[in-house]
């Protein structure tokens, strides 16, 4: 695949997640975000006006999909100062202290101790002043109500009652109280785990196992994966088939294996790439190409190279500066109904690593100077090599850059990673004969830049204008060093 399968997936907003050291063995993390950027459909104006911040469930590991609140270190009404531990969250790997990134008052606890919440969901609210506590509590009530996350108005807590909302809102999800009498559980433990992992609704899976049981293979089929385990292994079978089955049972979906072929299961990273690539099919994309003259850029590069500046940093900086002028290209479409404008310009850069692909992110690439950016990039590369990138260092991108130019590729087509608005594919710069307006021929270095974008929010003219700006910056690169 000549395209760029991107592993990363930005979190719901421009979250600033950072880790810091602590005396304890657990890793504390700051996880707070401003709700104004969190959910545009929800009372955006209100959120911006009042300084109520959401404390949300952090992604403590790349495999974490939900976290459990072990304990709230602070109680409602406690005053918090930046850097203090607020809550202990249990992920699939460890317990971690979550620290606040802002001063304020813990106004409301949305998810109580012992309960779980998906990554990114608000678990508490932080008010800046005491006067905002009540407002925050009111918000909390609406949040803790088991209504759809996009509810426009606060919904009364009991899901079974029929509220009469003033504004039309999605109907509450079917009530599933614990006391609806005995129900039969027909999915095996591993099937349930797989369903969660692949985000398959287990209730919609038709079980083919004994007694109509939903087996792991059923879930994998529903998730569009080749089942990794034979269906209906009989009790007392002599062969254990996990994770690579010695005798893969014939499955309806899988083509017959070619004799002599071997099956190598995905690594976690490869599985994530695969999933993101399949998800990308849901986005209507289009592509616009643009030739850019790079003689000036090459000259600049020669000049700044001894100072440790890399071509990646130059291109990222150029793209970031162009994005400043064309914010729509830095936007995201999350729900198919609205533009989600990102306040930071975070340039993700595709990096091939052994057996995978990851996108370290140069955060605030428009604000950092070229030298800082280059340093940052080296640091990210080092971490990527050591597989030590923190989630916010590979999934907070708002725009992606992919460069296959060094391999001599003259043009290619990138796949838009889900959650971003556009991705730029950069080809090799090569000498090209050019005729100018006066009919004079000359040889200039040119590279082809091809941008893939989400046509729901970014239109052809947007991309064209963005590319023209980008080309101008590259062709007059002095501004890059400012």
């Amino acid at each position: 695949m000549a395209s760029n399968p991107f592993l990363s997936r930005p979190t719901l907003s421009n979250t600033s997640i950072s880790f810091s050291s602590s005396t304890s063995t657990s890793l504390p993390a700051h996880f707070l975000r401003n709700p104004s950027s969190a959910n545009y459909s929800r009372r955006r104006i209100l959120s911006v006006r009042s300084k109520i911040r959401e404390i949300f469930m952090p992604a403590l590991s790349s495999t974490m999909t939900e976290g459990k609140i072990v304990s709230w270190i602070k109680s409602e009404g406690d005053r918090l100062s930046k850097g203090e531990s607020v809550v202990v969250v249990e992920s699939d790997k460890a317990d971690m202290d979550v620290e606040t990134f802002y001063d304020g008052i813990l106004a409301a606890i949305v998810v109580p101790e012992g309960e779980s919440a998906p990554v990114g969901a608000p678990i508490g609210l932080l008010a800046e002043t005491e006067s905002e506590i009540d407002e925050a509590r009111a918000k909390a009530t609406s949040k803790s109500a088991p209504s759809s996350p996009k509810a426009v108005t606060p919904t009364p807590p009991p899901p079974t009652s029929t509220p009469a909302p003033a504004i039309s809102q999605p109907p509450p999800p079917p009530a599933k109280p614990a006391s609806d009498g005995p129900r039969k559980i027909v999915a095996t433990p591993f099937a349930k785990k797989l369903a969660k992992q692949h985000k398959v609704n287990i209730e919609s899976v038709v079980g083919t196992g004994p007694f109509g049981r939903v087996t792991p293979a059923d879930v994998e089929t529903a998730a569009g994966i080749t089942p990794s385990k034979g269906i209906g292994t009989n009790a007392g079978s002599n062969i254990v088939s996990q994770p690579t089955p010695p005798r893969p049972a014939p499955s309806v979906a899988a083509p017959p294996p070619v004799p002599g072929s071997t099956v190598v299961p995905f690594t976690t990273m490869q599985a994530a790439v695969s999933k993101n690539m399949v998800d990308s099919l849901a986005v209507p994309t289009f592509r616009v190409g643009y030739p850019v003259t790079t003689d000036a850029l090459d000259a600049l590069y020669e000049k700044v190279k001894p100072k440790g500046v890399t071509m990646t940093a130059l291109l990222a900086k150029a793209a970031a500066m162009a994005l400043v002028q064309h914010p729509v290209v830095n936007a995201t479409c999350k729900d198919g109904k609205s533009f989600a404008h990102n306040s930071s310009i975070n340039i993700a850069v595709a990096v091939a690593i052994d057996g995978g692909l990851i996108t370290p992110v140069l955060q605030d690439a428009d604000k950092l100077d070229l030298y800082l950016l280059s340093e940052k990039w080296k640091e990210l590369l080092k971490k990527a090599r050591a597989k030590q990138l923190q989630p916010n260092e590979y999934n907070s991108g708002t725009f992606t850059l992919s460069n296959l130019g060094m391999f001599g590729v003259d043009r290619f087509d990138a796949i838009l990673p889900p959650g971003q608005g556009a991705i730029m594919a950069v080809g090799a710069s090569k000498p090209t004969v050019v005729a100018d307006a006066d009919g004079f021929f000359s040889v200039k270095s040119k590279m082809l830049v091809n941008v893939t974008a989400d046509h729901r929010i970014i239109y052809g003219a947007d991309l064209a204008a963005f590319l023209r700006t980008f080309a101008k910056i590259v062709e007059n690169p002095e501004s890059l060093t400012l």
Partner: protein
Amino acid sequence: MQSSLSISVSPHTSLTVQRSNRNALEPLAFAPPSKPLNLRFCGLTREALGLSSLRRNSDSFRFRLSSSARVRRADKFFVSASLSDNGSPPKTFDYDLLIVGAGVGGHGAALHAVEKGLKTAIIEGDVVGGTCVNRGCVPSKALLAVSGRMRELQNDHHLKALGLQVSAAGYDRQGVADHANNLASKIRNNLTNSMKALGVDILTGFGTILGPQKVKVGSDKVVTAKDIIIATGSIPFVPKGIEVDGKTVITSDHALKLESVPDWIAIVGSGYIGLEFSDVYTALGSEVTFIEALDQLMPGFDPEIGKLAQRVLINPRKIDYHTGVFATKITPAKDGKPVTIELIDAKTKEPKDTLEVDAALIATGRAPFTHGLGLENINVATQRGFVPVDERMRVIDSNGNLVPHLYCIGDANGKMMLAHAASAQGISVVEQVTGRDHVLNHLSIPAACFTHPEISMVGLTEPQAREKAEKEGFEISIAKTSFKANTKALAENEGEGLAKLIYRPDNGEILGVHIFGLHAADLIHEASNAIALGTRIQDIKLAVHAHPTLSEVLDELFKSAKVKAHVSAPVSEPIAV
């Protein structure tokens, strides 16, 4: 009396014990002393093996030849003592010590009794070795040895990190089952031979207490003895409403035979037995559903260790669980229907779920095996089946008085349902009847769960220690070390693990040690010995450990403790529980 002694059996028979068996004889499981019903399984102490029995045998041989006078003197003492306490006890006895039950507890007591020069007999109504050897720790260790290797061979990631390439691992169920069975019979023979070699009479048949110092063996034979130890052990506890058919609804007794490996098995009870079987079954390809009545899994463990263990032993495996629920009804598979399990909420008693699985393993603990023992003949009433005893294992009758010359050890008294605890209690009793007062410190008895990796503990858990500290007004501190910092663990690529020390910072007393990690069950003994001997942290932290070994995890642990007292205090008194 001397003439009845048999010293004819060759001591060499006991030397056939293979050294490698020792690993298989480690204790299987444990639970804190405060919750006897959750206590499970057993272990086998070193005495079970005859390596030292040659020396012992010759000692006792010499002893008997040279000191019959002393034995007789002891006879007189005991006879007069019993005369003053009882109405009509026998005046002469067939044996000095009679042990009812030839499990690990009885065996440990018998060996020690012979060493002390007592003429000893042991009664067994089933097979020598009891639960531990035949239906517990021993065969389960064989299965766990298989599951550990299967896990290693299936862990591609782990193997790759070591640079190894192994093609898909498979197993032969019957072969695995045979391994467990062969191990049990080998250990059983070792046990029998070691007792025969020492001159312990093995009497076959069920023992019934007829009166003071008098026991009926089988249907007619009556045997008298100066002192009697009840060591009848326990059987799997099956709650009401659960129908055990031995095929699809089973107890550990059946599971250890490994007659099948179901696709999906529900394990009722997430204690040590349940946890070990989940390790075996998931390694062999089964999926497991735990059913636990309490609100969290692994209730007996230190909470921190339990949480970490859950993260390693449950969450990444093909295991799910229902907590806070009772299984009120379990029906075996029949007529083409699967095993059905009805669950109710443990608090509200409302019906919750119905599970349909291929098999169910009942691991809800063990019940004492004391029915038909004739306790009513000596006015002893059991409590939930357990024989009431004092801290010296002396049996208490229904009026609260001690029954002279009658002791009860092991699972039958429920103090600490572990094989090695039973054996230690037996040795304690023998010490007492041979004139040396002895009270066993149960807080120094280690316990282990042989999952991969293992869990082990000794002494108090953190909540127990905090409660005690509050009550008695002292401070406690916690020290922890990670296996990630241990060279040997990293060399094995098994850095997952934690060791935790609970201690008194004022005097350096060790209150409890909990280990989760590679070979935790072997590592705990440094801590349990320190507790047993009253060694303080400030002293033990100066001890040297070979480098690089896993034992350095404990070295680090002791060194990281901060004790305020620098002068070592005198050995503390053993604490009875």
